[in-house]
Each structure stands twice: as structure tokens, then as C-alpha cells.
């Protein structure tokens, strides 16, 4: 079946502009995660959605970052007033249940470059 998809695959933007990154999780997966990965670094947790529960936003680095998940499926990560340090690959993952029980399946990522 279809895996996690993300769009766009690449995004180049100018400093100060807003960007929206999209994630389509695997159908039926209740949990959705956003991470970012800077060049040569590990994954930095950003936010986690589980069903209808309030999202875990503890990883968002600043209030310029926000995410929503509509209808329990598609998610959008929004970065306002982008800065050069926001340049990274943004990865989305989904799992059938929560992280305590289930494997996360990752999308291919969106490479964001802020000029």
C-alpha cells in the first residue's frame, strides 16, 4: 500500500517568508509525527498527534512553528517568518497506534532551504 508522502520534496524560500509543508500519513494510522534533521545530524522531534488528543508540541523550537492535523489525516507544518537556521529536512512519520506500541513509518521528507 501507499506509504507516507510529503510535499513539496524541495522548498527554497527567502528569509522572512512563511512556508507550509504537507504530510499525508498512511491510511488508518492514528499517530503522526514531525521531525527535522539538519545536515549530518540526528532527528529533532517537533510535534506529535495522536487521534483526537491534544498534540504534544514540546519539540517546537519557537512560536514561529505550528502544525495542524485536519480530520485526523493530513497534517500541515507551518513555519512563519523563516530564518536561515530553519533550513533542514523536515520528516513526517505515522504509526498505527502510539509510539509505545508501534513502528513509525517515515516519509521521504521535505528539504527546506532558507536563503
Amino acid at each position, binding site marked *: 500500500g501507499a506509504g507516507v508522502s510529503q510535499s513539496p520534496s524541495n522548498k527554497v524560500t527567502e528569509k522572512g517568508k512563511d512556508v507550509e509543508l504537507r504530510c499525508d500519513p498512511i491510511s488508518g494510522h492514528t499517530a503522526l*509525527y514531525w521531525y527535522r534533521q539538519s545536515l549530518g545530524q*540526528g532527528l529533532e522531534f517537533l510535534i*506529535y498527534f495522536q487521534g483526537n488528543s491534544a498534540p504534544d508540541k*514540546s519539540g517546537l523550537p519557537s512560536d514561529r512553528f505550528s502544525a495542524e492535523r485536519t480530520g485526523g489525516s493530513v497534517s500541515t507544518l507551518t513555519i512563519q517568518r523563516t530564518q536561515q537556521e530553519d533550513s533542514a529536512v523536515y520528516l513526517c512519520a505515522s504509526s498505527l497506534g*502510539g*509510539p509505545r*506500541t508501534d513502528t*513509525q513509518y*517515515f516519509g521521504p521528507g521535505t528539504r527546506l532551504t532558507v536563503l
Partner: protein
Amino acid sequence: SQQGEEDPQALSIQEGENATMNCSYKTSINNLQWYRQNSGRGLVHLILIRSNEREKHSGRLRVTLDTSKKSSSLLITASRAADTASYFCATDENMRFGAGTRLTVKP
């Protein structure tokens, strides 16, 4: 700080040799997972080990978990050039990943 911390940061071996990577974590967990990331191929789940398990096998992969030491190891036997990748561990607590171990398998 990262919940999963891998070591070594980098490992270089010859094809056919075994590779061992370690992961340490700080809090109680329900499970620990290992992932692989090839350049250009994204992040792929390898194996999940639950807190009540001590060892788990999947093909050439062997994972151990020592909850008393809050550590896990990933052993890749009879390594191949295609195993060249970065390997990450993550626990279910806070979903933090470490910086990974960069494995290079020379043909």
C-alpha cells in the same frame, strides 16, 4: 538532551565483518526501536524491542536490551557494502532520536 544516544559516532569495517552499535537512554521505556537511514533512501525501521524482551533477531540483525543499564546494542553480522548507512535508536518516551552511528562497510 536526546533520549537515545548512539555510540560510536562513526564505525568503519570491512565487508563480512560484524558491526556493533550501542544506544543509551535515560528514562524508563516501553520499547526501543532501531532505524537505518541511507543517503537518498530515507529512514527505515529495522527492529522494535519491548522492555520485557532481552534479545531479538531479524535476519542478520541482533538487538539486545538491558533495561537495568538503560542500554541497547545492534549487531549486524556478515556486513555488506549495502549496510553502509546511519543507524539511529529511539525510545517511545518523548520519541527522541540520537545523532546516530555512521557505519561504513568497505567492499
